[in-house]
């Protein structure tokens, strides 16, 4: 049977506010346990929440950035459940009245076509603390630093049909939230993570299959793997005549498998009700419009500008605008070398290749945009040829120093001295009589191909530094004279 995969994502974005969603404690990663807490985050008796207006601004900025409905009336609700890292016994979230309503996001598929993914809603909620099960001698430690840090939970429609679409959607969301500056988007630190609702159904069937919820996936790579491995699991079960159980599952990246977290029988009744400690959030058009006006250039707008202003292809433009840091890097390179096409080639080519090989993100690459721009300048002014440029890039990646110094130190400077090149050409011709004879005997149309041997010999003799254009011209002239 042929199966259709149905995926919906719930993305949790940690907002980059200075303080927490409902308290004045610092909202940051990495501090010693329980040092970033107030009475509110600790759930002390009589402590009351105060809504962080910066989190509101950020949520509204997100809503306007994806052109979603921004709700003028939203309400915080309590989600009641007991857990040691939930100090109040409830999580303050939004239920019936979220801050952001219906919207959508366009993603680019592998075949370069565009697909629209529906966004159901986005709501504000506070994060829980952390239970630390190691290092406490059989006991559990509780760290409430993360308690009440602000999250925006973005819920998609079940519109994605394979893991790659889910990754594209997640990447696009990442680009948007980092571009508008509401999150640092650091997935390793959990600033952005997602739950994936995955189900399958026979192709052509309208009714959705039973879904599994894959919890807390925190890298683009894992999204793809987790979904694929879960789909395989579901197909195996159904094709063996079994049934999918609706449940929450955890992706184990070491074993590349999903396994159940808790079963439906234990599912909580969260007893949502409006939080009586917080007033409904009322905002007006003027507030929303002011935020909309202050949005920076969004990824789609930037991509369009790369095409219209810099003359990039649609594809290069969309690749380069897919992340704010990548686009910023690219534009910084262009600023130095003033050649968008070459910059795009280098960023999407050599740089991306190294990033993949070394498994680093754009904000961690050792080659600065200025260095790459200078390197491109040296290509354009014929100081180095492309082979030499790759060698320089490799040195830059290893942080060997400045571009010109590397060229100098490695003797990569292109030899454009016509006399020196002519001497090398003459040497090669003189020492290759057999090949010269073959060249002379060949039909004129086939000689071009045979020129490659002589080119190679001269470049080898020059240790790669001869200007290939000059070598080519001289070789042709001299060989043709001999025939």
């Amino acid at each position, binding site marked *: 049977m042929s199966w259709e995969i149905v995926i919906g994502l719930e993305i949790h974005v940690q907002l980059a506010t200075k303080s927490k969603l409902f308290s004045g404690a610092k909202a940051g990663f990495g501090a010693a346990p329980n040092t970033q807490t107030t009475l509110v985050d600790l759930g*002390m008796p009589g402590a009351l929440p*105060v809504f962080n207006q910066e989190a509101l601004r950020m949520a509204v900025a997100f809503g306007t950035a994806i052109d979603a409905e921004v709700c003028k009336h939203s309400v915080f609700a309590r989600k009641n459940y007991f857990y040691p890292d939930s100090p109040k016994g409830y999580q303050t979230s939004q239920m019936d009245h979220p801050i952001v309503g219906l919207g959508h996001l366009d993603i680019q598929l592998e075949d370069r076509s565009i697909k629209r993914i529906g966004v159901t809603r986005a709501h504000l909620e506070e994060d829980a603390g952390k239970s630390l099960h190691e290092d406490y001698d059989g006991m559990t430690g509780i760290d409430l630093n993360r308690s009440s840090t602000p999250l925006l939970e973005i819920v998609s429609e079940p519109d994605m049909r394979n893991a790659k679409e889910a990754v594209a959607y997640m990447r696009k969301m990442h680009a948007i939230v980092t571009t508008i500056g509401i999150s640092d988007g650091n997935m390793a630190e959990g600033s952005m993570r997602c739950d994936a609702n995955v189900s399958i159904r026979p192709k052509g069937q309208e009714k959705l299959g039973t879904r599994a919820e894959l919890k807390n996936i925190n890298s683009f790579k894992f999204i793809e793997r987790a979904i694929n491995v879960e789909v395989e699991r579901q197909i195996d079960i159904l094709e063996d005549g079994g049934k999918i159980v609706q449940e929450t599952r955890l992706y184990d990246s070491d074993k590349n498998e999903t396994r159940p977290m808790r079963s439906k029988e234990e599912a909580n009744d969260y007893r949502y009700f409006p939080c*009586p*400690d917080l007033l409904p959030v009322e905002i007006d058009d003027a507030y929303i419009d002011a935020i909309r006006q202050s949005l920076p250039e969004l990824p789609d707008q930037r991509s369009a500008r790369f095409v219209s202003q810099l003359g990039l292809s649609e594809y290069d433009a969309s690749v380069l605008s897919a992340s704010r840091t990548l686009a910023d890097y690219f534009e910084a390179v262009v600023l130095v070398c003033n050649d968008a096409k070459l910059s795009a080639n280098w960023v999407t080519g050599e740089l991306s290749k190294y990033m993949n090989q070394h498994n680093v993100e754009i904000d961690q690459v050792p080659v600065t945009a200025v260095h790459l721009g200078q390197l491109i300048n040296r290509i354009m002014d014929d100081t180095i040829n492309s082979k030499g440029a790759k060698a320089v890039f490799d040195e830059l990646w290893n942080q060997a120093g400045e571009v010109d110094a590397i060229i100098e130190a490695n003797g990569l400077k292109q030899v454009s001295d016509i006399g020196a090149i002519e001497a090398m050409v003459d040497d090669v011709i003189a020492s290759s009589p057999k090949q010269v004879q073959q060249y002379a005997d060949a039909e004129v149309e086939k000689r071009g191909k045979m020129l490659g041997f002589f080119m190679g010999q001269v470049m080898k003799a020059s240790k790669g530094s001869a200007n290939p254009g000059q070598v080519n011209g001289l070789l042709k002239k001299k060989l043709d004279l001999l025939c």
Partner: protein
Amino acid sequence: MTHKTLVQIAKDLAAGKYSSREITQDIIADIKARDAVYNSFISLSEDLALGQADAADARIKVGNADILTGVPFAHKDLFCTQGHTTTAASKMLANFVPPYESTVGQRLLSAGAVCVGKTNMDEFAMGSSNESSFFGAVKNPWDLNAVPGGSSGGSAAAVAAGLVPAATGTDTGGSIRQPASFCNLTGIKPTYGRVSRFGIIAYASSLDQAGPMCQTAEDAAIMLNAMAGFDEQDSTSVQQETPDFTAELNLPLHGLKVGLPKEFFGPGLNPQVAECIMAAVKEIEKLGAQIIDISLPNLELSIPAYYVIAPSEASSNLSRFDGVRYGYRCDKPENLMDLYCRTRAEGFGTEVKRRIMVGTYALSEGYYDAYYVKAQRIRRLIKDDFARALSQVDVIMGPVAPTPAFDLGSNTKDPVAMYLEDIYTLSANMAGIPAMSAPAGFVNGRPVGLHIMGNYFAEAKLLNIAHQYQQVTDWHLQTPTSNNVPVSNQEKGA
């Protein structure tokens, strides 16, 4: 010192008749000597109090004193006091020492008032008789067989017994007004949002409001001046200028329109209580007020609606008492579930558990619409009733409770009978309007309070009416220990 008003003590301190340290020491000694009978205090904060008294004396000396500077008072044990146990009268928090002060407490301390201790109450403010306290029931100083009312019963008994001139209380469904009525005090529940809830252990957040319990309206106005005000730490506190609540005390009542809702004088009302109230209304009419019959048609629904909303909020508010971070923890928990279950089973009393279960049920999937949502709709109706009534009249009057203080133990077997005690008080909390109780006579030696309710932010008007009434009556001056054994209205009139 016994039964001196706050104003009298303030005058004596200003005149140098005694120091704050002296009166604080006297009061603490008096409590130690006499409170065993009433059980109105859970704890005394002697060291902290003497430190505050010395600081107050220094302020008085340099002429930097506020009217409350050096004046002793007591906190209901629901207000978090920095460095001093705050129990909510529960085993759950019997060992809890807050590292912070409630906003109300901080405001009173800033004014220079001296907190001598923490008063007994119904556990987590759930009750109408002060019999649900982990620290034992409180006795009514007017009649040791009677309850003092609840939930601020310890505060009421302490002031009524003359142990302290004033105490704080909280009122979620009548918990200031009903004990004030039962103990012959003047107590006011301000407009919801007038007084910060920060640092007061929450019972039902949308209904809780703190206020003072004193001997006179003037004292209550002075206390409220210190307690009220916007607090950025409480999102439901209102950003409205706080008036001087004493400023209108002496205004005449000419032309005041007083509404008497017929629903407040129905068959459930004790006829002698009704007589006291009607006599008080007559007195106020004599002061120039116009009496108008009105109706609050949905009053009866306030009991079922309140007993859905308040427990619902409570079930969530009390979830934080889980034995993990502070307070009571069961012995040797076997696992997490055991820790939760036994801590809460052992730490909470019966009435608290009852309300947590009712609230949990009301919020559950499948019942939420039928209970919580419906109760909120009724709340809206009650609000509308008051809006309609208060567009016709300035204030509404009636009894605070259907009976005078009842006997200890008489209602404990039947929670519903206890809940019915709140019939006249709940609606003000549901609507969020200010309401107060002022002494208005006695029935068989047990006090009766006049209930005065007004529009949002009309506290000054309510206090003005009570104060004017107190200028022409002396019910508020009666004390359990005075030579004139209190008599009923009728006897007095005869």
